[in-house]
């Protein structure tokens, strides 16, 4: 979808505004009820700053702890290297169950695995809808927020699921996906936070698909953006709790703390893809709560179409500059500053957008 087509698409605006109405109030409620979260945010911000300032040191430690536990560890400088490693681990003609992961969107992983003759399933309901529509997610946490119940019913017919309402459709997907979980050869997830101290991968969710996708298959692959590294379990736990609280759904229904266990082969791929060398280091503090997207007046009109091939919205404009290209779409920002105001990590996105604009103009 092109950017101005998005503007004409009323369902994007309606879906986002419905979500904002539901969740903004929830974020305020979470912070009132759990004021300690503000302190957690400060702690996580400071810890991430230290990691970003000394990436090489912390990456080496992270890889070392995993190796000592019997995990196969890889470092990918870019998307191509990451895809190559995953392709080698997975092989062909496998059933692969995926947990929703923005890093896997960033490297467009599903497409490559499917080309090798694998059956690959997005197991998060919203992400499955997007997979079937062959689109990109409209929001990093709620990928299919722009579809109505009736539209979802039509989309799910493609895999033989029939239902008249959200409950019947979810039931159909539950049954369909259970069979896939039980027969899957490989499970793939991203990582919300990684603890260097223990080598544990922290992942939050509400559906239960991540728990099933990462514990039932014999092979488990975790893709970890290097900015997800934190010093210890306490910080990793705080970071994932913040992610959920600042999105609006708190507490998360599931906190998965994945580590090497005897019954499973585990592979971890750390992905750089522009992170270490970026001039926009401040964006690496991002915990991907998605709040700046929902609260942004431009995102409310364009959704994730305002961005690159994976990331959209205020954070997405900068993430795209880090991982893909400097996009002229940054000139659509009003620089109203709402994203900076509501960001738990106090990231100054407007300042980075100004910088981005400057460098695009200078290039011309």
């Amino acid at each position, binding site marked *: 979808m092109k950017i101005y087509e998005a503007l004409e698409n009323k369902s994007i605006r309606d879906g986002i505004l419905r979500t904002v109405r539901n969740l903004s109030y929830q974020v305020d409620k979470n912070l009132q009820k759990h004021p300690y979260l503000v302190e957690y945010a400060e702690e996580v911000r400071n810890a991430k700053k230290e990691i970003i300032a000394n990436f090489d040191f912390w990456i080496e430690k992270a890889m070392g702890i995993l190796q000592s536990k019997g995990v196969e560890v890889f470092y990918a400088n870019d998307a191509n290297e990451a895809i190559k490693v995953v392709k080698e681990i997975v092989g062909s003609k496998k059933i692969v169950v995926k947990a929703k992961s923005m890093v896997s969107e960033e490297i467009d992983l599903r497409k490559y695995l499917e080309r090798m003759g694998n059956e690959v399933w997005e197991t998060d309901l919203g992400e499955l809808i997007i997979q079937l529509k062959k689109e990109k997610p409209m929001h990093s946490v709620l990928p299919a927020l722009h*579809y109505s119940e009736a539209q*979802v019913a039509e989309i799910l017919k493609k895999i033989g699921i029939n239902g008249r309402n959200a409950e019947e459709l979810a039931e159909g997907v539950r049954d369909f996906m259970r069979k896939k979980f039980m027969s899957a050869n490989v499970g793939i997830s991203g990582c919300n936070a990684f603890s260097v101290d223990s080598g544990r991968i922290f992942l939050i969710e509400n559906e239960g698909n991540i728990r099933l996708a990462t514990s039932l298959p014999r092979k488990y692959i975790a893709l970890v953006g290097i900015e997800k590294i934190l010093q210890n379990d306490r910080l990793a736990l705080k970071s994932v709790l913040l992610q959920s609280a600042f999105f609006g759904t708190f*507490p998360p229904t*599931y906190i998965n*703390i994945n580590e090497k266990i005897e019954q499973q082969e585990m592979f971890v791929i750390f992905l750089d893809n522009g992170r270490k060398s970026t001039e926009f280091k401040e964006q690496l503090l991002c915990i991907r709560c998605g709040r700046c997207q929902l609260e942004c007046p431009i995102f409310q009109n364009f959704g994730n179409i305002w961005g690159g091939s994976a990331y959209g919205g205020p954070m997405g404009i900068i993430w795209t500059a880090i991982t893909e290209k400097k996009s002229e779409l940054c000139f659509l920002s009003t620089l109203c500053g709402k994203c900076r105001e509501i960001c738990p990590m106090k990231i100054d996105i407007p300042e980075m957008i100004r910088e981005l604009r400057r460098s695009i103009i200078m290039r011309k």
Partner: protein
Amino acid sequence: MVLKSELFELIGSLRNNNVEVIITNNAEKEIEKFKMDGFKITRALSADKRTGIIFMGGFENKKISALAEHHVIILSERDVKEDVISAYEHAISNSECVFASSGPSKTADIEGKTVFGMHGPRKVTLVLEVKNEDL
């Protein structure tokens, strides 16, 4: 019934998270009625009174916590902790492969409508075991 204030806080958090709570001084007797198909029973390692996040341990239990239709969790009063970090640290000092759940599986991916039992349990019951003198 005389319950300590932290237990009241935990019960409030659990109910907010759509968890059914049973308070008893004899958990073994209480769970007898759950010993049939569809129910899976796990012992919790700890819980945070402020959020209702329940920590459990063991890889098999982890799978059960997602595969069960109805997940029944037994928690002892002495494992109720002041905050989520204390609850986590208590859990990892007592078990391998720690994980947490806070309620039934859910989704809001279709028009923001909440549906329970998306991929995991449709229902979660917490059996809170308290001392005799509290009942």
